[in-house]
């Protein structure tokens, strides 16, 4: 009884959590980017990526080839996305951006690898963490920042905000605010591809927090039944809002959650591994049917700008990922360490990108807010004589024509 002078209940719980955090961190750290096996031939780099974990499918080869131009374009895009998200953070802290803001920094390799493997004719739908997806699908940084600041020059004319960017001409179907709601829509996009025989795939992206939702498994079922060309991508950044994956999911091996569907776990911080996986998955999906990809990735910021991101994970974990697995750093090192480009060229790209972002911010600050009359546009206005049924079919209301 006297031994009850022991740790405070919360303290004990925190100890247990800390222990688990270090375990989880160790698991994350184990998959450091493999930088050892690299061979260079002229302008082409051959590199070994981290092995894929597979479920009901053969793994693609882990030897990936990339040319210097490809790597340069990846680096430019990765750096651009990184700086864009950082400037969104600073603008938010300066109250130039308000409301929701979910940042993608740390996860850039997923979208850049995806775009490297797929075409703009393939459809993609994702969650609210969509700033990078918009740019990767052909949008400009100015559109994203303008939209975040609510100006008419934004991607959705300033009426959508951070979570609702959309680019129909590039088959980017948003930008969805409700967690996990986009996955059934993604299956529908795949049905459209199959129905119209386009030969393309639909990519439905969701996070580890959404991965336990019911409608996702319903989508899996229907996609598998009808052999839809759908790639389900779980961007596993290991934390829901603040809940670690091992506390949320009985089986955190999200690539196996498709059960009868094949799946693959990919090192999501390595753009080359991601590209390889998507190319492989597209071939499979078009020929056979749906497949689940799990991207092992990480977000440096909290869930959103309201979340400091340090209450459910240690700063050490975040900085160790930054040091060991940062996607931008990885490509920079591939370029520099193998003598493909000079350091000055990289610095030049960085400077130009910063200028581009600066210009985008200035342009957005100077852009106007939407006029009041925009409240009445882009909304469904004409009822067109629609009929609404009441509780039973005896009660019908006809709206004005």
């Amino acid at each position: 009884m006297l031994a009850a002078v022991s740790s405070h209940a919360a303290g004990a719980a925190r100890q247990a959590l800390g222990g688990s955090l270090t375990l989880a961190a160790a698991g994350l750290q184990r998959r450091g980017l493999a930088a050892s096996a690299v061979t260079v031939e002229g302008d082409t780099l051959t590199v070994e990526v981290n092995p894929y974990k597979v479920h009901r499918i053969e793994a693609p080869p882990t030897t990936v080839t990339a040319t210097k131009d490809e790597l340069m374009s990846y680096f430019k895009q990765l750096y651009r996305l990184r700086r864009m998200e950082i400037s969104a953070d600073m603008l938010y802290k300066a109250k130039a951006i308000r409301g929701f803001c979910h940042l993608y920094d740390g996860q850039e390799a997923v979208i850049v690898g995806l775009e490297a493997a797929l075409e703009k004719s393939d459809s993609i739908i994702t969650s609210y963490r969509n700033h990078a997806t918009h740019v990767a699908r052909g949008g400009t940084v100015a559109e994203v920042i303008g939209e975040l600041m609510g100006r008419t020059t934004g991607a959705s004319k300033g009426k959508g905000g951070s979570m609702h960017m959309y680019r129909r001409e590039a088959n980017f179907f948003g930008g969805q605010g409700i967690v996990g709601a986009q996955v059934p829509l993604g299956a529908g996009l795949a049905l459209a591809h199959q129905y119209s025989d386009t030969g393309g795939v639909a990519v439905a992206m969701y996070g580890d927090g959404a991965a336990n939702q019911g409608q996702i498994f319903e989508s899996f079922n229907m996609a598998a039944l009808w052999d839809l060309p759908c790639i389900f991508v779980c961007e596993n950044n290991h934390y829901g809002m603040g809940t670690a994956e091992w506390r949320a999911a009985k089986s955190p091996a999200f690539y196996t959650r498709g059960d009868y569907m094949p799946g693959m776990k990919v090192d999501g911080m390595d753009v080359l591994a991601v590209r390889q996986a998507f190319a492989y998955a597209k071939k499979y999906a078009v020929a056979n049917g749906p497949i689940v990809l799990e991207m092992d990735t990480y977000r440096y910021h909290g869930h959103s700008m309201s979340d400091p991101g340090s209450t459910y994970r240690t700063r050490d974990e975040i900085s160790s990922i930054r040091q060991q697995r940062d996607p931008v750093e990885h490509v920079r090192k591939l370029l520099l360490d193998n003598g493909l480009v000079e350091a000055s060229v990289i610095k030049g790209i960085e400077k130009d990108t910063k200028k581009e972002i600066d210009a985008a911010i200035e342009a957005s600050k100077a852009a106007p807010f939407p006029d009041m009359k925009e409240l009445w546009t882009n909304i469904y206005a004409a009822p067109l004589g629609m009929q609404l049924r009441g509780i039973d079919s005896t009660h019908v209301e006809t709206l004005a024509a």
Partner: protein
Amino acid sequence: MRRSLQALRRRWIAAGEFSQLGGCRSLQTFAGTALLRPTEAASHRPAFWAGSSLAARCYSSLPPTTELCMPALSPTMSSGNLVAWHVKEGQLVAPGDVIADVETDKATLSWENQDDGYVAKLLVPEGAKDLAVGSPVALLVEEEDQVAAFKDYVPTAGGAPAAVPAAEPEAAAAAGAGADEPAAAAGQHNSRMGPAARSLLAESGIPAGLVTPTGPRSIITKGDVLAAIAAGVKAPAAAAPPPPPPQQQQKQPEAAAPSRPAASPPAAAPQPAAAKQAAAAPPQPAPAGAGYTDIPNSQIRKIIAQRLLESKQTIPHLYVSADVDLDGVSALRAALKQQGVKVSVNDCVIKAAALALAEVPAANALWDAAAEAPKAAGGVDIAVAVATDTGLITPIIRGADAKPLPQIAAEVRELAGRARAGRLRPEEFQGGSFSISNLGMFGVDEFSAIINPPQACIMAVGGSRQVAYMKEGLPASKAQMTVTLSADNRVYDGEVASAFLSAFSRHMGNPFRMYG
């Protein structure tokens, strides 16, 4: 400097590349540009900046920097205090490093850096208060060797002469223009006045000398008097109290705001009362012999002050005292000490109060303002008052009636320590169903405290004293202390308060039942 930076930046973006102005490099801001005050709309006087010659001015030989400005770490934050720096000048920072602790309107949070670079200059010292969101607080440079250039760099307040005079002449001109008219009008009006103007003047009490005449031959018209009333011109009788500061204002030559002393009485116009004008002149050197020091009120103290006033004014306080014997508690403490467990009198008070609240549920209630009725608190959560440097804070012991005494003691020690360090989490000091404030260790016999709404009671515990009494016909002494309940009379009536106090006394007198 802010405006000049904006002007500079417009030039660069127009030029499309960094231009070396006259051989010296100008200050470049990266996303520091984004950190300007968000209230500046894009259309805010662009012509002024674009056409000004400020852009031609540049700081000689300063490398390009990234400005770090005070961040809004919560959506409701408009200014914050910089509690502590975590970096030093010359230190390399990487994305994700914590630069500083920032005290917001709610809590002290860590501010993480997003940029690579070396810290060139910390523009504000530790402990700087009320920094507006968006004001620059530090500078980063890209190369380590560029840090030395900022050794003697003076931040914006002193080193922005072009911006301040540009702003000042405007402000001075505006004030001067406002001041000139009444000054010119003073004593220069025609004594002829229409009856309407005359009666309006009499009604409003404005002296004719303060009204600007616009009629022919400087006649004051009715419209002039109406305009003067609308502008809020007050009679100089209102400017009389307090006389010394305004008069001294006029006597002392002002370097900072030349137009202000001359405009002091008429410039009472833009301000509701001249007393405010006097109060607005604190930067003045105080009149000789009035030595005092202003101690600024911290954020916590301001909020405490507000809440205390609200509580005292809106809650009907009922005060009930009782003397409680302390001998049993002393015996318990001695016994525990022998076993190596340290328990203070306050811990026993907490436990006894918790048990009493469990026994008298009507005493463990809160006042529900919305329903205008008492409502039972969920559990026995006792808030213990801890005095810290920044103010009084009350960490909460939750479920105190079920916790064993040594655990309460340990919790109180830990929470008090963290409270003094300012590291309590919000859920640890918000809530609670009952408060205890103990001033016994400061030599106070008896006092009454102010209730913390929405709680319904606070117990003020005094110090122990030896009291003589007759025990079996022989004089003896015992230790006693006085506790005073301040209770919300809408929730507690006399019966409930005395039931609680008698239960409390009983538990204090029977301490070995309290333990465990």
